């Protein structure tokens, strides 16, 4: 494997030698992972707006496939760094910061006024008091539900755990699967874990767990898994979810066979394509204990300057361009996400508006399980959570296994 990587980098170096002959001063190279047609269009429109505002800069965009990009970035940051790379906040960013591959851009935060306008997401971009990137979009998670089914059965949006369980019980009684989920790609199960843990134990404990400082065998997690198992044992989740991708699990909801789905706001276009978005609404994941802050998962997408970038001066101008509230708004809302720029106008889309409200009042913002914890940890953690969702009685063995992984990954004994 390693050999292949090396040869790959060698090829990359060769191609760089070629391209560096053609690149002139004032060229800004951007590597983008926005491969979905809609996201791609929005990103290019934003870059075009930047280009028009800075006619002297010649912008070159390299488009990658979203999944391929996750592997490619490790090579190109070392072998052929662009001037701007798109990536994710939190632990995913920290990995490259530790490698010395991302540039400290605290000066841009200062000069472009991001310290005020983007204070909500600042923590996710900060390592040891310095900022290493600028966020351009983030989106809420929460429960998307079939409002028409709720109305037919006389159910309201649940505000707390007891009401949530009551809603589930009523749906089940009426032959509707309360919660749909597809766990073939695993991370959907992690979404449930994030919310259950943050609602029961609060943000700080959840982060301690993500950072390897708390144990998966910590007794405080007993309550989390007990409450979750209660839903599982009552049969409130879609059957055979391990065989379904998250997209496939939307079908029961579109068909009216299931009523709720804990998911990110990027799911909304699926309802639009199915022509039934009018029947869908959103509520915040309900409170479980009073006194525990309502922390939210809001994965943040970001721009970074690689340390090896050739044109850091223009790259800084590109980051600072997000201070333009209209363009920042267009870039985010075009993708169905929210702009972290507090000076931008509030979104008019019904889901984005609710997300905006939820996130502005959130006690803390987490990035999501697979962005908050070490990659090696979530590689074992997510299958463990999936297994728990199908075989809740194995939780003891799963937790001791995960804790073994935690000790190895974070070298804590």
């Amino acid at each position: 494997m390693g050999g292949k990587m090396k040869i790959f980098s060698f090829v990359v170096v060769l191609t760089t030698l070629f391209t560096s002959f053609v690149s002139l001063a004032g060229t800004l190279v951007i590597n983008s992972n926005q491969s979905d047609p809609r996201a791609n269009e929005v990103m290019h429109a934003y870059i075009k707006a930047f280009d028009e505002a800075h006619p002297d800069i010649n912008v070159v965009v390299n488009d990658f496939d979203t999944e391929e990009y996750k592997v490619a970035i490790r090579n190109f940051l070392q072998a052929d760094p662009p001037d701007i790379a798109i990536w994710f906040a939190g632990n995913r960013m920290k990995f490259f910061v530790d490698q010395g591959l991302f540039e400290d851009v605290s000066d841009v935060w200062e000069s472009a006024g991001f310290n005020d306008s983007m204070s909500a997401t600042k923590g996710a971009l900060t390592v040891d008091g310095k900022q290493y990137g600028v966020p351009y979009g983030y989106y809420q998670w929460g429960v998307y539900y079939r409002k028409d089914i709720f109305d037919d059965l006389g159910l309201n949006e649940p505000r707390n755990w007891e009401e949530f369980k009551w809603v589930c019980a009523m749906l089940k009684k009426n032959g509707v699967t309360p919660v749909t989920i597809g766990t073939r790609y695993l991370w959907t199960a992690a979404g449930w874990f994030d919310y259950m843990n943050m609602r029961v134990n609060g943000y700080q404990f959840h982060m301690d767990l993500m950072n390897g400082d708390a144990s998966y065998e910590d007794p405080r997690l007993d309550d989390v898994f007990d409450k979750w198992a209660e839903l599982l044992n009552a049969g409130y989740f879609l059957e055979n979810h391990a065989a379904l991708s998250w997209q496939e699990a939307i079908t029961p909801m579109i068909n009216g066979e299931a009523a709720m789905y804990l998911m990110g706001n990027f799911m909304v276009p699926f309802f639009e394509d199915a022509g039934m978005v009018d029947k869908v609404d959103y509520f915040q994941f309900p409170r479980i204990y009073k006194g525990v802050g309502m922390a939210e998962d809001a994965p943040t997408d970001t721009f970074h300057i690689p340390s090896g970038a050739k044109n850091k001066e223009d790259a800084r101008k590109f980051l600072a361009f997000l201070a333009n509230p209209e363009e920042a708004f267009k870039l985010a809302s075009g993708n169905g996400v929210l702009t972290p720029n507090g000076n931008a106008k509030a979104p008019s889309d019904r889901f984005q508006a609710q997300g905006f409200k939820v996130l502005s009042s959130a006690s803390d913002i987490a990035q999501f399980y697979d962005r908050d914890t070490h990659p090696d940890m979530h590689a074992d953690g997510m299958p463990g959570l999936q297994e728990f969702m199908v075989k809740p009685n194995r939780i003891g063995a799963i937790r001791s296994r995960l804790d073994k992984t935690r000790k190895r990954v974070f070298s804590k004994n």
Partner: protein
Amino acid sequence: MIKYLKKNQIKIAPFFFLAPSIILFVLYVIYPIIDSIWVSFHSWNGMDRGLLGLSGELKNWKWVGLDNYKELIFDDYTFPINLLNNLKWLVLSLLVIPIGLGLAIFLNQNIREMKFIKPLFFFPFVINLVVVSLIFTWFYMPKYGILDLIFRFFGLEPIAFLAEETLATYAIIFAFFWPAIAYTMIIYLTGLTNVNTEVVEAGRIDGASGISMFWNVILPQLRPATFIATVVTVVGALRSFDMVAIMTKGGPWGSTSVLAYKMYEEALFSYRMGYGSAIATILFLIMDIYIVWFLYRLFQNEKSEK
């Protein structure tokens, strides 16, 4: 110098002709193998090997000796699962060979209609494995898949094969059968056209027919075809990575993962290149042992014939 070259032209020329492929083979096959083995004795996250940490030590690259192997064999609870799955693939995939042979013999009849039927049997071989995996994922899909409809049509309780830890591996192997049988069948069809009719005639004169004709006259002549079919099927089964990646992602909870898939996950997604390389090395050894055994047997057979 030129004089020397001219004089020894016949001796030297082959090396010039071979050089391009030797260089490519060394660069893209031999070197990665050696480097992978070297990496497997290190802890490496796939980033710059020479990067220094705060106290001047190598940050990403550390010699760990046999630790990766020790952890894999004694400490990793998924290793026996992966190995067992590889074994299931290995054993069950051998079924492909008699089935392919049977189909080839069936299709080898000189009937005019066969010309239209044959291409249908070639069809799965033409499709990419990725597409085969997707088709079978839909086939097995709970509630909306065809298999589910068939089960319900016969009044049976549908089974979500890919969601069951005990059944999912068999379901993927079954999907692998579809293109693999087509492949062995094609190999045997070409093998059958090469069967020497004189020998068959001689056998008939000696009173052979039916099973004894097949077993003693036809099958020995198909040995080269059997050799290729077996090697290709077994190597394909040991790799079996793409189908697992697409149909289940190794799930549910790692129960369908095979060594090749585990290697990919550890190296690329857990940032553990050293550990991934250790898995690759083990897989490499398993394949080597198998191929050496197979070649040994083949040579023995050929020797005994002479």
